[in-house]
């Protein structure tokens, strides 16, 4: 907290953006995000990356990553099934949309169905912790993907499922430009939701369950209820992300929702910072942007050495893995912690303390 900052009411003290300075920055960020699509094409041509697509992916994955961060970061329950949960949301939205349900019902329905599935697979969390729970949720991952592949008359099997574009009334989100704003709204909504839950009764109970579940019980937190609730909310969010994703790419198959996606989600939370809203934001940006950025040198190198281009093709994955490992070693609390350190440093600069 900056020096000389005094609040006169508790409400001011507990607000998310306490100072004029911070609020100014948030408004600037908001204006930037709203204005970005209008000059996205120019930027994309300049850097050679489809910026609009990248931003939409960031927004969609942000909704899901906030979900997993709520479960793993706040409540302390590891899940390796969130990739498949995202798939459940995507398929629910896709199937309902194909039945002719309107978009604004499909998306919440995707969330609710996924929440139900997540809560069922969350029941083992009552008895299992840590690695054991990870293995139990891993089972969810494989069972669900198996169902997606083999329940053909519902999911279309490995051929995939076509999803119509999202439509509210007569307005169709048929281009990246339009979809950008839809995804942005969801990303902001999910971020605000997580931030608010974290600072109220429910969020505190989640952290209590994580930090010391025995004394959580003594102060009256029902462990079973809050663990399952956390699984439910988390799955709801990741299911909504899945629904958005289905409406965005308009063809989904089980191959999108493999264990790789679950691990990516977990990596987003860990690299960004578990148990912090800022963490999932940083983590998602990192995980979506890094492969795109790595593509540029990879393509360049395979152009120069065409004979060994398949080696460079896997360079992306290798660098990706190395970066994650380096993060775990040097900043296990994630990018958000590093961010706080940097901020604290500048607060005192140029004095050492």
């Amino acid at each position, binding site marked *: *907290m900056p020096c000389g900052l005094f609040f006169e009411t*508790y*409400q001011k*003290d*507990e607000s998310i953006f306490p100072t004029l300075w911070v609020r100014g920055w948030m408004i600037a960020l908001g204006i930037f995000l709203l204005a970005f699509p209008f000059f996205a094409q120019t930027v994309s041509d300049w850097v050679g990356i489809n910026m609009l697509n990248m931003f939409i992916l960031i927004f969609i994955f942000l909704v899901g990553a906030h979900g997993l961060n709520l479960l793993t970061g706040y409540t302390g329950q590891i899940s390796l099934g969130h990739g498949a949960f995202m798939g459940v949301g995507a398929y629910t939205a896709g199937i309902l949309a194909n039945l002719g349900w309107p978009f604004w019902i499909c998306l919440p329905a995707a969330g609710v169905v996924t929440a139900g599935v997540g809560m069922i697979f969350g029941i083992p969390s009552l008895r299992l912790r840590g690695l054991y729970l990870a293995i139990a949720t891993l089972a969810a991952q494989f069972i669900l993907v198996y169902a997606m592949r083999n329940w053909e008359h519902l999911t279309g099997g490995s051929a995939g499922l076509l999803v119509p574009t999202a439509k509210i009334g007569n307005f169709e989100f048929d281009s990246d430009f339009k979809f950008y704003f839809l995804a942005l709204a969801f990303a902001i909504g999910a971020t605000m*939701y997580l931030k*608010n*839950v974290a*600072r*109220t*009764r*429910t*969020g*505190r*109970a989640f*952290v*209590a369950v*994580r*930090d*010391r579940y*025995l*004394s*959580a*019980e*003594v*102060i*009256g*937190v*029902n*462990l079973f209820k809050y663990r399952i*609730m956390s699984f439910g*909310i988390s799955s709801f969010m990741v299911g909504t992300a899945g629904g958005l994703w289905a409406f965005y790419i308009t063809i989904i198959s089980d191959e999108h929702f493999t264990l790789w996606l679950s691990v990516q989600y977990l990596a987003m939370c860990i690299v960004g910072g578990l*148990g912090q809203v800022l963490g999932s934001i940083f983590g998602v940006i990192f995980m979506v942007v890094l492969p795109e950025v790595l593509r540029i040198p990879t393509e360049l190198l395979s152009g120069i050495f065409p004979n060994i281009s398949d080696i460079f093709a896997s360079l992306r994955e290798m660098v990706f893995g190395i970066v994650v490992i380096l993060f775990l070693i040097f900043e296990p609390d994630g990018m958000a912690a590093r961010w706080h350190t940097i901020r604290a440093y500048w607060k005192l600069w140029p004095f050492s303390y």
Partner: protein
Amino acid sequence: MPSPSTAGQKRQEQAASKPPLLIVDDIHLRFGGLNALSGVSFEVQEGHIQAIIGPNGAGKTCILNCICRFYHPHRGSIVFNGRDISKIATHKVAALGIARSFQNIELFRGMTVLDNIKLGHHVHMHSGFLSGGVYLGKAKKEEMKVRAEIEERIIDLLEIEAIRKQVVGTLPYGLQKRVELARALAMRPKILLLDEPMAGMNLEETEDMARFILDVNEEWGVTVVLIEHDMGVVMDISDNVVVLDFGTKIAQGTPEEVSKNSHVIEAYLGADDAAHSKLGL
């Protein structure tokens, strides 16, 4: 402020007219072949500071764990405020007005002091994951009310204003103990179970803690059950003392009575020395 003797008299008059707040009746607790508690019974009068003392392994903490339903005694009953609590779920005990602190600090280490204390209020709040998530209207008002109550009653009483925004894991031991007391007080308890609140503290911290316990007892009327090894504190502040040894109650009475009891002296000093010495109180 009334003198200690009149306060004591008043309490005894109250005790005569009112039924005891907590009745522990014939509790048996066994771990495998080990009898941790065998037939312990005592009553705690409302408004009293009830001390439980005894050598290590006597079963003091076991009793607290039975009262807040961590352990399930296989015989006997515990009646709190006229209600048998030996069958209810662990997380429901808090709502009845039973709060406790732990011997080894059991705070939520990753949270700030303020959040830890707010968690004590958990059972008295109502916002859920939906109303809390939008943080408008009722949920917000409730948060502000709780914040005000905690700040003005508890943080002020325990003198921890300066550390309220700090993460608990970074605090020194003595302050963590105090935060744990604060969290227990935030539960608006009728009875406060304190497990060695002065353990590992220096003289000044011990005196502070004793003062807080007396304040809470006298100003808020909270009944206190206190496990403590610091005999000076026990003899000074408690109204009644239960002495345990090997899972059985060997004596109960006022501090003076207990300190003269031959069983107690034997348990603490051994039979041989008992003849030559009285408990160094």
